[in-house]
């Protein structure tokens, strides 16, 4: 059983999702069965993820050859500290989203929970695989699940946002395949570790082709991660989705970021000869611009969901900046920041929904509307969430930003990173303060006390679960940063996967 551990996180949600489509769980009236099963699956997923993480901490990175086809011929799953950490994060976010959806979102359509499981399967698969074509397949799995989840609940705005999202991602998939074809044609392999060996031995003509392939991969991952010129889909899509779906989508951009880290560190990293770090001249300015555009977006947002979507953009930009510094310390800082920003973005989407429910037609727009029914509860949650997202002590946002700032070593890097991050933080504080004032203090008359509007217990549980992670991450910052530093060291050690996969020529 233990040797199959790396594939278990994928199997749990695959088989679980399929089971949820079978008779005991189908039908409108049997939603309670579905809920219990979905909750159980999420907990199981977290348990498996923790077991995987413990194994990885204990024994170092492990590989799993699917069907026992050895590398570089078969598909290899490769669980190192980074993959295990992100799988655990996915499981945790899945649990919180599922809990939140129990408030009623999951009853708007019959297949919410199965599709949620397939979505989790796609995300965990993308984190665990070490084969570029398999990465494409898992991207498609998570995309088709996300297409369905996005229209969940129906309505004009969602259909509209989904048309754009689907078309963009289908074009993205086509580019992904062309990039894979080019890379396979030149290096003759699809295994990431194997390709990292082959890439430095290419002839000059092949290097050009490999460079084209690599740049196209950057376009695809940039589209998923919402890197600057490819970010236009994100605010609309995320603010159109239902709250638990938007919360889960908070990790989808991180899949793109993870792929950028993995591919452009291992394949096109230090050891790639003439092609080493070829994307840096592009990613570095685009990262800064992404933060700037995200900050302007936060200031210009007409509603809270849009603010949340734009904070996702800011976090993407910050992560790409940390990527561009290209040191293991910066990568480790980025992983800590990725954990924090994923969780807090999810919280913001959920809070926007809870606040909106109590403000009648205005929903979460910043206009004068009726008073929220539970100002103390929602106000307290919003206040804490805002402190976390802008990065005020004593929460994880503060530590996340400090580690990222500290990792910028040299003069120019330091000046750019510090000024961008700090100015963006200041402007986000202003935008969130304005948002909070309008949402909670500027209201027309007293609210009619109707019980049905107050936030459901499930919603509060989901939000508090995610929000609690922030002080916990701050209290246990030392072990967590140690872990992310180890993950970064494993990622930057290009020879490590080669020896774990026992590839030829790895000596």
């Amino acid at each position: 059983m233990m040797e199959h551990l790396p594939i278990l996180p994928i199997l749990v949600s695959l088989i679980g999702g399929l089971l949820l489509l079978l008779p005991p769980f189908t039908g409108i009236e049997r939603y309670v069965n579905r809920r219990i099963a979905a909750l159980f699956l999420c907990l199981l997923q977290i348990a498996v993820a923790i077991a995987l993480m413990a194994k990885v901490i204990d024994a170092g990175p492990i590989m799993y050859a699917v069907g026992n086809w050895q590398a570089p011929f078969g598909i290899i799953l490769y669980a190192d500290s980074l993959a295990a950490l992100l799988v655990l994060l996915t499981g945790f976010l899945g649990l919180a989203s599922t809990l939140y959806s129990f408030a009623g979102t999951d009853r708007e359509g019959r297949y919410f929970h199965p599709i949620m499981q397939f979505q989790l399967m796609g995300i965990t698969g993308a984190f665990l695989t070490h084969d570029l074509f398999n990465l494409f397949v898992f991207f498609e799995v998570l995309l088709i699940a996300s297409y369905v989840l996005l229209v969940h609940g129906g309505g004009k705005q969602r259909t509209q946002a989904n048309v754009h999202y689907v078309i963009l991602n289908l074009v993205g998939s086509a580019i992904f395949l062309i990039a894979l074809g080019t890379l396979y044609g030149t290096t003759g392999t699809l295994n990431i570790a194997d390709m990292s060996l082959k890439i430095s031995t290419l002839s000059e003509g092949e290097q050009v082709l490999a460079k084209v392939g690599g740049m196209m991969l950057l376009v695809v991952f940039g589209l998923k991660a919402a890197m600057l010129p490819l970010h236009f889909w994100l605010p609309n899509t995320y603010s159109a989705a239902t709250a638990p779906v938007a919360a889960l989508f908070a990790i989808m951009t991180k899949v793109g970021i993870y792929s950028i880290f993995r591919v452009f560190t291992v394949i096109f990293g230090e050891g790639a000869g003439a092609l080493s770090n070829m994307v840096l001249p592009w990613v570095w300015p685009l990262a800064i611009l992404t933060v700037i555009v995200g900050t302007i977006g936060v200031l210009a947002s007409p509603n809270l969901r849009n603010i949340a979507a734009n904070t996702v953009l800011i976090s993407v930009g910050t992560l790409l900046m940390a990527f561009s510094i290209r040191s293991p310390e910066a990568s480790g800082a980025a992983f800590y920041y990725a954990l924090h920003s994923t969780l807090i973005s999810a919280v913001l989407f959920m809070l926007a929904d809870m606040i909106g429910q109590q403000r009648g037609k205005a929903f979460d727009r910043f206009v004068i509307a009726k008073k929220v029914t539970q100002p103390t509860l929602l106000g307290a949650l919003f206040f804490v969430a805002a402190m976390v997202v802008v990065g005020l002590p004593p929460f994880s946002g503060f530590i996340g930003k400090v580690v990222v700032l500290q990792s910028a070593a040299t003069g120019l890097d330091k000046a750019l990173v510090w000024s961008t991050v700090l100015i963006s933080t200041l402007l986000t504080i202003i935008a969130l303060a304005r948002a909070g004032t309008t949402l909670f203090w500027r209201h027309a008359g007293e609210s009619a006390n109707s019980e049905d509007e107050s936030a459901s217990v499930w919603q509060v549980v989901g939000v508090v679960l995610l929000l609690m992670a922030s002080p916990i991450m701050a209290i246990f910052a030392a072990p967590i940063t140690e872990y992310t530093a180890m993950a970064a060291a494993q990622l930057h050690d290009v020879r490590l996967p080669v020896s774990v996969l026992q590839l030829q020529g790895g000596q």
Partner: protein
Amino acid sequence: MELLYSLCVGVMTFSGVFLCLRGRTFPVVMGLMMLGYAVNLFLFSTGRLSLDGAAILGKSETYADPLPQALVLTAIVIGFAMTAFAVILSMRARADLGNDFVDGKEPPGRPKQSVSRWSSKQ
């Protein structure tokens, strides 16, 4: 053979990209299909083009790389499912939004079109 092959892939990609940039969902879906075909052909050629090459050992003198063929099969299946989804979604968008534009509304400055034959208001 190489020239003909690459010309075909190029023309199909061109048509696909052109159709994807149109304003209505039908040509865009056609464009995506076209792009998908072009990509599949391209992927097939990454194992190098050869005549009479077998993909199984011991069946012939020359061998073709079997991996791109497996990749193409996977890509075809995925592309098929995605196209089906895109078609259904466009029909849903036509019903929900009242027109078949990708942006969900008539582009401004365009003369009002006569009621199309797909319209429900006949």
